[in-house]
């Protein structure tokens, strides 16, 4: 495809590498929204990103946060979200590299928001086949930050995290921070007063070709970084199978094309929000009758 002309998509910060992926002095060729880009690591903490068109380069803004290198093609991008947990001293901050997923970025966000699949796809870990009900929860459009939140979510989980030693009723809060990023807060197994923060930032290479980055800020004094990553990747590779089998891969925003249930309230709120911002990239155009 050619580069998207969708101004909403262009004005988002998206990840284009994970911090540490490129050795100092090295570089990486990748793509965002159909635009080839060149990511150079110029120093320990400094990167240069440029859009490449043939032999000409246009330098793009860059920032390194949440274990990722972010860039944007837009002139007035929506700011990156603030996630306070990443600044807490005792948190285990780790990325999980990135994982390729061939579907539209919105399918990834919706899968992340969905609790109904836990028992069936993450059986014995994030859900159990005898406790599949998604209890009622609430969704909010927080206008001051223009984010979609799902609150008061609970789900029975046999092994909610690497630190878990038994089943628990896990409390979740979901937060859609941009069309291409989403996170959750789930109560820490060992300290119910605190929440683990787990994010997904999506690099849309093309409309149905994405890289998913999963930075986490975890409260866990015991597990190794390898343990934490292995747990998260194992979950995500289970999701990847169903994600790549969803049809159509592009997201329909017409409310009659896919029928939601009450458990999909967060997804409904997300789709309405996408529709209101008139995003076009990766969206299934409604066919004429």
């Amino acid at each position: 495809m050619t580069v998207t002309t969708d101004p909403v998509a262009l004005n988002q910060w998206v990840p284009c590498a994970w911090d540490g992926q490129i050795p100092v002095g090295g570089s990486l060729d990748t793509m965002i929204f159909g635009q080839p880009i060149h990511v150079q690591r110029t120093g320990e903490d400094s990167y240069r990103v440029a859009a490449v068109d043939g032999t000409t380069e246009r330098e793009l803004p860059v920032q390194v946060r949440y274990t990722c290198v972010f860039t944007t093609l837009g002139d007035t991008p929506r700011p990156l979200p603030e996630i306070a947990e990443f600044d807490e001293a005792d948190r285990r901050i780790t990325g999980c590299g990135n994982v390729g997923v061939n579907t539209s970025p919105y399918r990834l966000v919706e899968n992340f928001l969905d609790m109904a699949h836990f028992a069936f796809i993450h059986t014995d870990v994030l859900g159990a086949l005898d406790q599949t009900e998604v209890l009622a929860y609430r969704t909010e459009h927080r206008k001051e930050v223009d984010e979609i939140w799902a609150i008061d979510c609970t789900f029975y989980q046999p092994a909610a995290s690497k630190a878990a030693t038994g089943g628990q009723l896990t409390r979740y809060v979901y937060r859609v921070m941009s069309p291409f990023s989403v996170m959750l807060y789930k109560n820490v197994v060992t300290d119910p007063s605190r929440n683990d923060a787990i994010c997904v930032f999506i690099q849309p290479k093309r409309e149905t070709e994405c890289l998913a980055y999963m930075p986490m800020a975890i409260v866990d004094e015991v597990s190794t970084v390898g343990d934490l990553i292995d747990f998260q990747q194992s979950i995500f590779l289970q999701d990847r199978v169903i994600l790549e089998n969803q049809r159509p891969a592009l997201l329909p925003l017409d409310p009659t094309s896919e029928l939601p249930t009450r458990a999909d309230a967060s997804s409904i709120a997300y789709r309405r929000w996408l529709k209101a911002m008139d995003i076009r990239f990766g969206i299934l155009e409604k066919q004429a009758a």
Partner: protein
Amino acid sequence: MAIRLYDYSLSGSCYKVRLMLGFLGLEYERVQMNFYPGRQHRSPEFREINPLGQIPVLEEDGLRLRDAQAILCHLANSHDASGEWLPRDAERFGPVMMWLMFAGGELMAASAARLHDALGYELDIEEARRKARAAFRVLDDHLTAREIAGARWIVGDTPTIADVACFPYVALAGDGGLGHEEYPALRNWMRDFRRLPRFRAMSGIPEFI
């Protein structure tokens, strides 16, 4: 008789060993490897354990073994009193070895396609998929002939380490953008394999095969 496995959940090769340990009912200590993104298997420390920089590695009673296929042979040789997982008779031993080498050889093209699609490895994806399809074709043809002969497993009347070695990268094909549609005999065989006692799935193996 402590067994230790240097393991990574998403590795299909480690999964071969985990399956075999499960089928044989063996307890083991798991050493978590940060394969991706940490590339711990290529660290100088791990090269002391396996100079090839590959997982899995299995340790037992002073033995240190690399290569999933070699480890399957060792586990069946040392821990399977029935002798069925690694049959020693002339009729079955050679064919089991042959399909074991196939699992560690031609079939690994499907692993390459998966590493490309999921973990961003830079390689010729079309070439990897073409080779994987060619390998699937060979195994599917073999299993079709076995079905016609009234048999279910790759060699003999019971599952062997050849089935264990071949299953992961056939079942994980979807992770590398390879469908099972063209391989009906592989699908039948995978369904039978999944029904074995103590079978455990891993991430990326669809429920609907």
